[in-house]
């Protein structure tokens, strides 16, 4: 494929996402929908990062909410205790997440399969435990409030401004992820996914590539965590908890592992579904579990890849 053709396909696949961000508000009847939209894009961002790790490199992480927590508490602790501007703290959080991912990544990523799952799970739990117990800094289990985001004298508040901030950031993260996957590193990661030993034999520095994508996905999660904290104006240790990590993994798998667009779909389903299900009151959890099961039984490759293969089947007929 020539470079031009490559650019064309990549830009083409970004167009639907841009269109979604721009035109979705046209069918929003109230400000509440902007809030849901913003949450979908924020989670979508974290899920794109995690999908790079899980879907492309084939490395599961059950502790990714830990990085969400680092990002979130960066924009809470920085401005409150050090008077630093929020955007700077967000960047610092991204750097910190990257640094921590770098430090723990090498030993943890040596583990394989379910052992990697328990390793990352333990790592995520450690972060959540520290956030819960260091109450002097983090406010303990009740969490702490987060000052709003100021950008060049403009104060970001209200669901609609956060809709645009998170929407634009998501498009950026989306295009970045697409580019990364078409790069030599991306190809190498997919080779690692297929067979680590074969990749090693081909001369790929497996440990280094896995570490790289782990760091990148940690940074995505950190940005999403900072956004969530700034948007909600509040952080609690739940942000870094085990159930949050499971939720992120569920979004990746539901949308489709290895499908960047699927990340948005997975995030949308699991953000919107609980909102819809609240009308069923006490049946909410049971229905949520049931829907996750049914989706995974019938669309086992995830929503986007399954639908795509059905459409491809029709086209052949």
């Amino acid at each position, binding site marked *: 494929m020539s470079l031009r053709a490559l650019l064309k396909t990549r830009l083409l696949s970004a167009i639907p996402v841009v269109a979604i961000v721009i035109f979705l508000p046209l069918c929003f009847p109230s400000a509440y929908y902007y809030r849901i939209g913003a949450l979908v894009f924020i989670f979508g961002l974290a899920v794109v990062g995690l999908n790079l790790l899980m879907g492309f490199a084939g490395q599961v992480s059950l502790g990714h909410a830990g990085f969400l927590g680092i990002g979130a508490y960066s924009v809470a602790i920085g401005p409150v205790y050090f008077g630093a501007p929020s955007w700077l703290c967000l960047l610092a959080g991204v750097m910190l997440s990257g640094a921590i991912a770098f430090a723990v990544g090498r030993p943890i990523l040596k583990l394989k399969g379910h052992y990697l799952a*328990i390793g990352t799970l333990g*790592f995520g739990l450690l972060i959540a435990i520290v956030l819960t*117990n260091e109450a002097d800094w983090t406010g303990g289990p009740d969490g702490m409030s987060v000052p709003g985001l100021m950008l060049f004298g403009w104060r970001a508040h209200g669901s609609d401004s956060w809709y645009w901030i998170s929407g634009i950031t998501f498009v950026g993260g989306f295009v970045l992820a697409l580019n990364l996957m078409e790069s030599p590193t991306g190809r190498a990661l997919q080779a690692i996914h297929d067979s680590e030993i074969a990749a090693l034999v081909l001369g790929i520095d497996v440990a280094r590539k896995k570490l790289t994508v782990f760091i990148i996905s940690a940074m995505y999660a950190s940005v999403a965590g900072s956004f969530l904290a700034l948007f909600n104006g509040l952080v609690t240790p739940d942000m870094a908890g085990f159930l949050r990590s499971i939720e992120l993994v569920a979004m990746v798998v539901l949308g489709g592992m290895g499908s960047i667009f699927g990340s948005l779909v997975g995030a949308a389903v699991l953000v919107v579904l609980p909102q819809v299900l609240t009308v069923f009151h006490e049946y909410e959890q*049971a229905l*949520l579990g049931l829907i996750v099961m049914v989706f*995974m039984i019938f669309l086992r490759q995830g929503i986007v890849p399954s639908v795509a293969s059905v459409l491809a089947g029709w086209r052949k007929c």
Partner: protein
Amino acid sequence: MAELLQFVFSGLTVGAIYALVALGFTLIYNASDIINFAQGEFVMLGGMTTVFLSLAGVPLPLAALIAIIVTTAIGLALHRLAIAPARGASPVALIMITIGASIFLRGVAQIVFDKTFHSLPPLFSGGPIRFGGATILPQSLVVLAGSAVIVVVLWLFVDRTMLGKAVIATAANRLAARLIGVDTRRIVDFSFAVSAAVGAIAGILITPITLTSYDAGTLLALKGFAAAMLGGIGSALGAVVGGLLIGMIEALSAGYLSSSYKDAVAFVIILVVLVAMPQGLFGRVKIERV
């Protein structure tokens, strides 16, 4: 010294339950390569069903028996209705199904039962036993004895019966097992049923000490999974040792270091062990074929 003995005893009690949960993970994993995150819900269902049946006036032994049967049926249904239809799906997709099942079972328990904490009367009435300066609840001994009986029965079953040999054959090589006439689908059925029953018994044994509620399963699944991985997934011995170790580490670090960091200590040790021994304590090294 008395203090240490006290911590060791409470660690062993909790550890025995972790070991039973880890055994449940191991049984299902060996038969089907699936990590069943609904394992903790089996424990919850065992405890909660017994509680509510005995509240309804059913005598305790009968209530416990019915609870075990109900949970076993739910375990079977989980395999038949959710896992078997998704045969051939990727391991991660199968794990997601079990996570969905765990959310579902928690949601149903919330409706059928309620959202408050419940306890059961201990099997033997009577005050705590004094032993070397430490006090031991009689129920702790019941938990330890019960767990030991389950482990021995499972071991005898696997080692001495034809069905047990078929389970081992399925665990060793599913395709080969099918070729020599083992109905592997039934073996997986069976492993889900036994896992559920073991979980339910664990739930009934521990409820008098730790209480139970509709969401008690999540933490137990987490600890049981950690125990199974620490021991080396697929190894029954590893599951038991892993469970007891994690229980002990928690109790000792809660006693001597800090109770809010007991889980942290446990997971730091798990991480260190896994980095040093990436297959867990008793796991077999798998060789990747290209």
